């Protein structure tokens, strides 16, 4: 049952390694070998299990989702080891996980020194991972039972946004793929026209459209032209928008979008408000010129809100509240149904509304006021789902920070790294923040961070349910 998806992904992986071959800098053979191996294993699995097509068991589905991610990470780590980019398995695993979960924290202190093929492969994993999560949410989750379905129909698939008629999964996947591919193409072209070498244009587009955040230089985006930085900021901003919404917008079906734009409105308002604060802070507190403040402020705000993690400035050196605000933004995250991580604006919106309605209920105990979103009442199922995810998320953040501190990381840095990994933002605070890397982390800390990334990407519940003793009972 696992085979079919694994093989498909394995095949895609093999395809992705092929462009890496073109940069022939002595690592081509190793990469080709890995690609062949991945293809072979994927193909074998596919062939031997091709008869089982359906995932009926709920337990199997949960297990599979997590397993897919783990197996893909394992294979993604192969080229990193084979090319000698890193010799430590935990570092390779972290890097691969960071790629596939589109987090963007790196263990390479000096990214520019890496062979081209490895750089390409890192970008590729993020591009795959960014799309993979959307795909996963759309394709697999509806099979995961009533609760999950309720949650995802509310946020990810077309039902809530397009109108009353739910759109079939296949259609949504096709639309999403269209949007993703065309956005990638458009931004590669745009960056190329703005004067960036094609190779960097491809890399950066891959990592930013997937809200990943790997870069081809250890100073991330800071050496690019302002125009290119703004272009990438636009890419990031779009990567935080619901893909179905984008599809409808670009195919000019505006009437279907209608006034169901609450989540989008909130997303944009959060962005604008935060950007204003950051830009103001940069100008008045840190004495930057308006132009620079505007550029650095907007790009960093987008990067945090969409949990991309690309940097145009070393934010760890910024005024503390600004650094803090960026962390909070990354916890908030982009829109549901996008490639970004974090809690998602939709959930934050429901949480806020719910708190407000509880407050109203206390003031006017006899009033009946259902929770509404996009003018439709939110069912108590969804409400409690959101609440549970929030609590689990908050608890994970807290415990993650503490365990990380037990691994010998300082308090501030632990907070940063936990938020960075769980939300998929990438960089943390201190050494791992800004232009820094996770190179100094101990293996134990790296494994923990990898686990946090997986948890964050699969939104906690899917992974945590595997730890339930009841899960393994027959």
């Amino acid at each position, binding site marked *: 049952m696992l085979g079919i998806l694994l093989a498909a992904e394995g095949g895609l992986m093999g395809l992705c390694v092929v462009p890496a071959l073109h940069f022939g800098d002595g690592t081509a053979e190793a990469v080709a070998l890995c690609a062949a191996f991945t293809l072979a294993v994927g193909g074998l699995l596919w062939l031997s299990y091709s008869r089982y097509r359906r995932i009926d068991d*709920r*337990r199997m589905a*949960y297990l599979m989702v997590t397993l897919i991610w783990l197996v893909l990470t394992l294979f993604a780590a192969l080229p990193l080891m084979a090319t000698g980019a890193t010799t430590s398995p935990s570092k390779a695993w972290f890097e691969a996980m960071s790629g596939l979960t589109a987090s963007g924290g790196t263990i390479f202190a000096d990214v520019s020194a890496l062979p081209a093929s490895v750089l390409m492969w890192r970008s590729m994993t993020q591009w795959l991972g960014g799309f993979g999560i959307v795909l996963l949410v759309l394709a697999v989750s509806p099979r*995961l*039972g*009533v*609760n*999950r379905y309720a949650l995802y129909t509310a946020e990810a698939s077309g039902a809530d946004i397009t109108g009353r008629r739910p759109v079939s999964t296949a259609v949504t996947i096709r639309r999403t793929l269209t949007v993703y591919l065309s956005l990638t193409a458009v931004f590669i072209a745009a960056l190329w026209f703005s004067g960036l070498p094609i190779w960097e244009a491809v890399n950066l587009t891959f990592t930013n459209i997937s809200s990943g955040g790997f870069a081809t230089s250890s100073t991330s985006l800071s050496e690019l032209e302002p125009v290119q930085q703004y272009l990438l900021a636009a890419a990031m901003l779009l990567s935080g928008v619901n893909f179905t919404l984008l599809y409808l917008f670009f195919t000019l079906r505006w009437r279907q979008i209608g006034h169901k734009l609450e989540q989008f409105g909130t997303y944009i308002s959060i962005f604008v408000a935060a950007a204003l604060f950051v830009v103001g802070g940069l100008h008045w507190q840190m004495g930057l010129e308006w132009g620079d403040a505007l550029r650095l402020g907007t790009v960093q705000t987008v990067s945090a809100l969409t949990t991309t993690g690309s940097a145009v400035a070393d934010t760890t050196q910024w005024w*503390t*509240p600004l*650094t*803090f*605000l960026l*962390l*909070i933004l990354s916890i908030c995250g982009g829109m549901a149904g996008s490639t970004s991580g974090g809690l998602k604006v939709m959930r934050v919106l429901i*949480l806020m509304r*719910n*708190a*407000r309605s*509880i*407050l*109203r209920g*206390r*003031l*006017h*105990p006899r009033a009946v006021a259902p929770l509404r979103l996009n003018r439709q009442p939110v069912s*108590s199922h969804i*409400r*409690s789902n959101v*609440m*549970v995810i*929030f*609590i*689990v998320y*908050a608890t994970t953040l*807290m415990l993650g920070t*503490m365990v990380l*501190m*037990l691994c010998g990381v300082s*308090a*501030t840095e632990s*907070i940063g790294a936990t938020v960075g990994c769980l939300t998929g933002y990438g960089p943390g*605070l201190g050494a791992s923040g800004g232009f820094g890397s996770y190179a100094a982390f101990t293996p134990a800390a790296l494994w923990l961070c990898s686990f946090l990334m997986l948890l964050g990407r699969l939104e906690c*519940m899917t992974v*945590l*349910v595997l730890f*339930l003793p*009841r*899960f393994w009972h027959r």
Partner: protein
Amino acid sequence: MQLFNHRLVARLAGTLLLMAAAALILPTAVSVWRGDGAQYGLVLAAAGMVGTGLLLRNIVGRRATSELHERESFWITTIVWLVMPAAGALPYLLTGSLTTFTDAVFESVSGFTTTGSSVVSDPAELPAGVLLWRAMTQWVGGLGLILLVITLLRRLDGASMQLYAAEFSGTQQRKLHPHMAKSVSRMWQIYTLITVAETAALYACGNSGLDSVCIAMSTVSTGGFMTAATGLAGYNDATHLVLTIFMFASGVNVALIYNFFTLHWRRLRRSDEMVVYAALFTAAAAICTAAFAVSGTPAGEAVNFSLFHIASTVSTCGFYTTPPPHWPFAASVVTFLLMLSGAMAGSTGGGLKLRRLMTMWLYLRNYFTRMLHPDAVFCIKIDRRVVDADYVNKIFGFVFLYILFVIGGAFALTLCGSGIAEAFCMAAANMSNLGPTPLINSMGANLEYAMMPTAAKWVLMILMLAGRLEIFALLAVVSPSYWRRR
């Protein structure tokens, strides 16, 4: 719609001020007896309270009707919690103990909210009268100013329940007596009884009379103001033991303590929350002891300190002694978690309250099971009673707002110049009304509330109030829909 009942609010505030003035007689007497020169300032403060009190009670609040609705009950709660701390600041200012307005209000808010964060650098230098006043603010704040109001409003039984709910939001308490005012006065009786018992015990351990009274008032209210700059390090082991026991007890639901005294012990065992509280305390103390022992502290000292520290943290009391030289990391973790969890609902302690956490835990467990078996139907039972879904949702909402306040508070503190990690610790410690804790000191920097910038002190004050009033009462009066005409 009927008009907002301003007169009643004014009348209540006035009455409370008069009571505060009356309460000042005690510190004044102590000051005169000790001859520390603070009596003039205290009398002046009392005079100010009497003046304002009479004005509010007899002129503004003349002919007050006793009609009370939900809106007024929130307003009363907030007004009372603003007026009293403001009045409580007067003695500090007029005796010259604290020189700035912010400091005086901070100390007073910290007292009434039973937080115990202090801006006094050396309490031993305070005049005896002021020291006693400081302890008294906590003592009153411990059971809650609103309970005081309810005692005043004996006639308004229906309204008292609303008031009670405004201060103790959402913890679904059982009343001690069908009659609200009676059950509240029983609570005061138990409270006084415990205070007297602890004072006697402390006195028997060889502490001075003033110290015994002040510390006892700090303990039972889970406040945490101490009488020496070094915390409680200068006191003997017997004192520490007594304090540990009483701190633990003050984290227990007052209703259960009542059951304890009336020999209904089976109720204690049957209370799920009590069992969890005891288990949590034991486990945390064991972990903490082990951590200290492993890091090289002699076993005896490790046990003593851990018991004391854990009791102080879980009840959100906030007493501290000198920690062993090496502060293990596990101790920080345990401290932080206990600080957030807090004590039992219906106790004088702060934090999220165990009952809420238990409810959430049970709900989460069911939720995970339901992920596997979507058609399963569950109910959550605490103390053999079913918790309804609406109440669970309120708890989740509360916890969300709580976390929001801690994050927002920490953000505001970084605006005032703190680092991120210590801002989180401080915000959480004050939101849970814990106050001082070795955890903050273990963050490395020499973090003292006295050294904080003025703006940071106001941020902390808001957090303390929000924590004590459990957010909703505070948010209610600032929400636009509250002021909209119906």
